[in-house]
């Protein structure tokens, strides 16, 4: 096993990887950008190295800077976490060239899974059913029109170099095709440096299910499926395992197909094969060639530490789990807590966390990248914490999750906790009737009214101030120029005078 490991990431995932690695006696070296000098993940490491400016391209995405840190720290291996450089074949290859073990799949497997068309072809060749579509780059909107007419609307443009739901555009009718084609190409070029698109049939009311696989040179093990249908703009928000829609027979087929698919790609380490479940059939969606955000729910129901297995596979120590050990127990759910305001169209909400209290107790796990006083910079992913619950049954998990979401207090920034409160209370979710567009179809965000107990208290105080006539119109003066506010003075005067008004204003119920 390695003695020194560089963790080339930030936030909750860097902390999560360090936890297991340090348990295994590995010396952990973290990295941080200028914007993350005070970040929580630094404290989870044995040491940490500054790797550049706040922008990802200057730090966490900068291969030269990350490798320099690896050399300086004298590590043997690099764990990339998820996002940033985790699925970058150039980075994996450069690690190997410079003598570091990349804790992830080989560069060739990353290149294959990162090219969505090549991955589709490889899956077809391995006998994995793929979603109806074309295995070539669509060169013009005219060509797209012909293909779309063949496979039938709605269709979905996807970026060949895409990922994370970026560069996808759904088209419901021929008139929308040309503008959607141009827009999606622009987004793909801006995000991936490659405008190429291909086309797939858009499956209505499909479920997103995926199989976690661990695979070494000798064998591959697939785990019970995760269902991640609760999404917004192709971003997962709630995940659970097992899926309420997957029978035992379907499960063994999915696992068998997923393991076979990754073996055909010469894949190694941890990977996930995503499927769309539609009309009782399943088709391949994509391979996520990394440890995923939602991996803790698999850990909850199986008891397997996926990061430990990643490190063992990478070090050549072999998988520790046998197929008989992957039996699952109970049901687990994860809610992603993002610094986004669900009441204002999920607008990003970076800022300083002034109060933080996470739920705890049996069956509750919080993987967090923040604490009280943390500053969430605007440069990175909005994920601040993951709330995971594990209970005997789905019903009990949902109840536990509702309580835990209510008990989660994060002040100073807005989070999507009110969204979770809302989705967990829909009857569709309770029934296990999930599909990838349910958040928009059921207008979940539009149903959110209040934000939570703390905002309710603020509203109460605000109403009390108005009812007590403590707020009245005056000239506007910005906070910076008013060290002593007129209202503060008024407050003190009112206190000096014995408090309150001689005749308090009254409001009837």
């Amino acid at each position, binding site marked *: 096993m390695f003695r020194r490991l560089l963790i080339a990431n930030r936030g909750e995932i860097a902390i999560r990887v360090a936890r297991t690695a340090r348990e295994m006696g590995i010396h952990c070296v973290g990295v941080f950008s200028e914007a993350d000098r005070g970040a929580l993940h630094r404290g989870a490491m044995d040491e940490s190295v500054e790797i550049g400016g706040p922008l990802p391209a200057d730090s966490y995405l900068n291969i030269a800077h990350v490798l320099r840190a690896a050399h300086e720290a004298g590590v043997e291996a690099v764990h990339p976490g998820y996002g940033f450089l985790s699925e970058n074949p150039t980075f994996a290859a450069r690690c190997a060239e410079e003598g570091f073990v990349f804790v992830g799949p080989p560069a060739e497997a990353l290149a294959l899974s990162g090219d969505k068309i090549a991955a589709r072809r490889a899956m077809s060749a391995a006998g994995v059913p793929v979603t109806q579509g074309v295995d070539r780059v669509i060169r013009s909107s005219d060509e797209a029109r012909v293909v779309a007419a063949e496979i039938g609307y709605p269709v979905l443009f996807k970026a060949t170099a895409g990922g994370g739901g970026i560069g996808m555009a759904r088209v419901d009718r021929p008139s929308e095709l040309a503008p959607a084609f141009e827009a999606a190409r622009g987004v793909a070029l801006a995000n991936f440096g490659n405008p190429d698109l291909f086309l797939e049939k858009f499956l209505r009311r499909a479920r997103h299910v995926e199989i976690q696989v661990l695979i070494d040179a000798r064998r591959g093990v697939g785990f019970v499926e995760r269902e991640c249908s609760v999404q917004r703009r192709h971003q997962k928000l709630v995940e659970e395992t097992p899926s309420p829609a997957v029978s035992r027979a379907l499960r063994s087929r999915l696992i068998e197909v997923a393991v076979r698919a990754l073996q055909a790609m010469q894949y190694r380490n941890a990977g996930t094969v995503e499927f769309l479940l539609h009309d009782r059939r399943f088709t391949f969606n994509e391979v996520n060639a990394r440890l995923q955000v939602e991996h803790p729910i698999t850990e909850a129901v199986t008891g397997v530490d996926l990061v430990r297995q990643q490190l063992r596979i990478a070090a050549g120590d072999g998988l520790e789990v046998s197929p008989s050990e992957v039996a699952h127990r109970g049901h687990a759910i994860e809610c992603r807590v993002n*610094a*986004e*305001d669900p*009441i*204002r169209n*999920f*607008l*990003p*909400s*970076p*800022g300083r966390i*002034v*109060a933080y209290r996470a739920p705890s107790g049996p069956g509750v796990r919080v993987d967090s990248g923040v604490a009280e006083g943390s500053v969430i910079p*605007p*440069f*990175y*992913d*909005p994920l601040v914490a993951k709330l995971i619950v594990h209970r005997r049954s789905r019903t009990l998990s949902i109840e536990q999750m509702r309580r835990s979401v209510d008990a989660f207090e994060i*002040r100073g920034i*807005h989070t999507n906790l*009110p969204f979770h409160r809302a989705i967990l209370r829909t009857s569709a979710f309770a029934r296990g009737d999930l599909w990838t567009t349910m958040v928009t179809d059921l207008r979940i965000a539009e149903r*959110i*009214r*209040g*934000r939570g107990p703390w*905002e*309710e*208290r*603020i*509203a*109460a*105080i*605000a*109403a*009390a*101030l*108005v*009812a*007590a006539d*403590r*707020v009245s*119109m*005056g*000239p*506007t*003066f*910005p*906070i910076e120029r008013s060290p002593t*506010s007129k*209202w*503060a003075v008024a*407050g003190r005067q009112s206190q000096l005078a014995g*408090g*309150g008004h001689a005749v*308090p*204003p*009254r*409001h*009837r*119920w």
Partner: protein
Amino acid sequence: MRFRLDIDGERRDIEIEPRAGGFEVRVDGASYRIRARSSVDTVDIRIGAKVLRVRLQGESAILDDGVHRFRIFEVSEAAPTTGRHAGGAGNLVDVRASMPGRVVRVNVTPEARVRRGQTLIVLEAMKMQNEIPSPGDGVVREVRVAAGETVTADAIVASIELRGSSAS
């Protein structure tokens, strides 16, 4: 009525409107229907089925067992997303950043004619882009930010001289 409430170090935007028998209170856009009854030093607040008693003492609000320090700022009548310059030209409005973030693009230069809804500036935060539109038809008088700069929420990014009656 609209004001800013600094409460225990957190700054929140409050909008409050009288409604039949009470108020509608919005905290950063989240709305609550509230009834209030005040006596000498306390105000009883009803939200839904819940009753909360708020005691106001100087700059503290005592609610159940919690003492919250508050300050009130920027009280105004309307709820503008753009603030008007005090005095000066009547139809000059400030355009403010919708969120904290980085300016990725500035689409306009001073003296450019713009139409209502036209994108002036594109902000990015947390891998999400947000376009700041012009509040009306008019002429750009000032651009206060450049691509690459970081802005705070509500920072003034530009000012627009609105044309004719669209200023309202």
